[in-house]
């Protein structure tokens, strides 16, 4: 019994990364940034408006949070749709009350099915981030490039036409990409992507259509990760947001501006027993001096000006 020879060959064993998408760089060595008004923390709140289709395929896997039981899984379909009917309005009320401006990642299916939600986002002057077609149409290694090109174009175009916004941000459903996703979104004029959770600050990504940026959209400070995946309590969610903020706030005093990203799923945090936890966590962050509530595009623009 032995393994093929290539199993002990390491053609990409070299300084830096084992791919060419981005440069190796340690956070603590980078040039410090200063946010507008001298803020220490850019607060980036990203609610996701998601459509989980009842006939969600496992292609090649089901996006977390999707259908579980045999068809028709009315239970999970309606639990997720709760976010679009009820939960989002509780989230909006909390954010409005605290003067926080959000960047909302939205599936094209939401734009088509619930245009009222796009109006609500626009009325607030919030940013819209293209979130793919729906939670059943994933981008993944092996997806035919023609099919993926159509998915990207559909998602971006639908959102731009319905909202009138430029739409420069992208979040893949389930944060899943193919080897071509970054090239395809760049070709559609996307300037930043929210899938890569390897940094606390923006960094440049190489694509066949020029440089775009990775923005540090959180997978850790995320209500779905903490309360659904980890089964932590609402109070623990609040503690973790506070602990995240306290550390970044201290670090920012010496290392330069940091980004506090909070990922929200209205079907999770918008439940009656959870909304006060979200409010309490956000009130803690927003109650500090030197916190700049901003959209992803605004944070990225400020970052790029200083590079």
């Amino acid at each position, binding site marked *: *019994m*032995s*393994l*093929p020879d*290539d*199993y*002990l060959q*390491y053609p*990409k*064993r*070299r*300084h*830096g*990364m*084992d*791919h060419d998408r981005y440069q*190796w*760089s*340690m*956070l*603590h*060595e980078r040039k410090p940034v200063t946010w507008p008004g001298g803020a220490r923390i850019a607060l980036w709140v990203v609610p996701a408006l998601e459509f989980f289709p009842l006939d969600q395929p496992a292609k*090649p*896997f089901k996006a977390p949070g999707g259908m579980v039981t045999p068809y028709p899984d009315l239970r999970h379909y309606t639990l997720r749709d709760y976010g679009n009917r009820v939960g989002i309005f509780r989230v909006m009320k909390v954010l409005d009350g605290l003067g926080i401006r959000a960047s909302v990642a939205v599936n094209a299916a939401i734009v088509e099915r619930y245009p009222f939600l796009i109006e609500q986002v626009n009325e607030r002057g919030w940013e819209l981030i293209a979130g793919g077609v729906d939670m059943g149409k994933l981008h*993944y*290694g*092996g997806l035919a490039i023609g099919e993926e090109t159509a998915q990207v174009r559909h998602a971006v175009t639908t959102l731009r036409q319905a909202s009138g916004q430029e739409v420069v941000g992208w979040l*893949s459903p*389930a*944060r*899943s*990409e*193919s*080897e071509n996703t970054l090239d395809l979104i760049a070709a559609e004029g996307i300037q930043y992507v929210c*899938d*890569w*959770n*390897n*940094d*606390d600050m923006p960094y440049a990504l190489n694509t066949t259509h020029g440089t775009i940026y990775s923005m540090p959209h959180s*997978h*850790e*400070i995320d209500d779905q990760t903490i309360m659904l*995946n*980890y*089964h*932590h309590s609402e109070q*623990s969610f609040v*503690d*973790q*947001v506070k*602990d*995240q903020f*306290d*550390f*970044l706030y201290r*670090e920012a005093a010496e290392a330069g501006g940091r980004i506090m990203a909070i990922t929200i799923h209205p079907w999770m945090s918008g439940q009656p027993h959870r909304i006060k936890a979200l409010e309490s966590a956000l009130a803690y962050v927003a109650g500090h001096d030197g916190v700049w509530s901003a959209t992803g595009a605004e944070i990225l623009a400020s970052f790029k000006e200083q590079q």
Partner: protein
Amino acid sequence: MTDTPAMKSDPGLYDYWPYVGRPKLTWPGGARVAFWVAPNIEYYELDPPINPSRAPWPRPIPDVLTYAQRDYGNRAGHWRMMEVMDRFGVRGSVSLNVALCEHHPEIIEACVERDWEFFSHGIYNTRYCYGMDEAQERAIIEDALETVEKHTNQRIAGWLAPALTHTERTMDLLAEYGILYTCDLFCDDQPQPVKVKKGRFIGIPYSLEMNDIIVYNVQLAAPRRYADMLKANFDQLYEEGAESGTVMCIPLHAYAVGQPHRIEALAEALDYITGHDDVWITTGREIAEWYYEHHYDEAVAAIAAHNER
């Protein structure tokens, strides 16, 4: 598969040796607990060759989410973890994917400056030992020895199998190459002799229970609970250490523990542990060398005596 080897019901690496009635274990200075911290400094490849026994990633390649989560440790988490360890005077014993010496020598240099120990955790955490023949397994051991020596001037003394993947011959080969200890046996809170074909070999406790990845990603614990678990683990081993020395290990991964919402939980635990008297803050190599010099022969005799009863 016609060449699948017969499987055994017992790995045959050690004889039963109950925790009670052992010869007293003493640490330098009369310490009760030998305390060591083992940061895993790892490199996961985006698109590695596939081992037939295990897929490298849960999603199709490129698994951006999982790859990037690991990469966070090197880009952002490592420095925070290292600064917390500096604050409490704890030197790391690095469980190293040795290809990291080439990919990220800046991290290696920072650890060398701090006089940290390096032991081998394979070449990459995406290359598994399952299915290797003897020559292949020798090749990765020799690669680890040469790479670490070239970049750190250290000869590696310890081994944690890459991604905890083994063959039945691993321990024999490690002993043959003069490696002193393995971290892959989780059945004790004290060092233990390991049966190998030639020479001497030991396992030293490397707690999977206190491993941040097990706590955070398997047990799904919250950060503040991790601090409580670490303190409780220490309290018990410290209490028992009054009678006979114990070992406490905290295995870490910067991609987990170096997250902003988690780093203070580690600091809280290190503050607590290092605030006690009679704690030997040490490294894997130092524990192994002390054990060979002072306890190994006595332990082997005690184990033999127990099993001859």
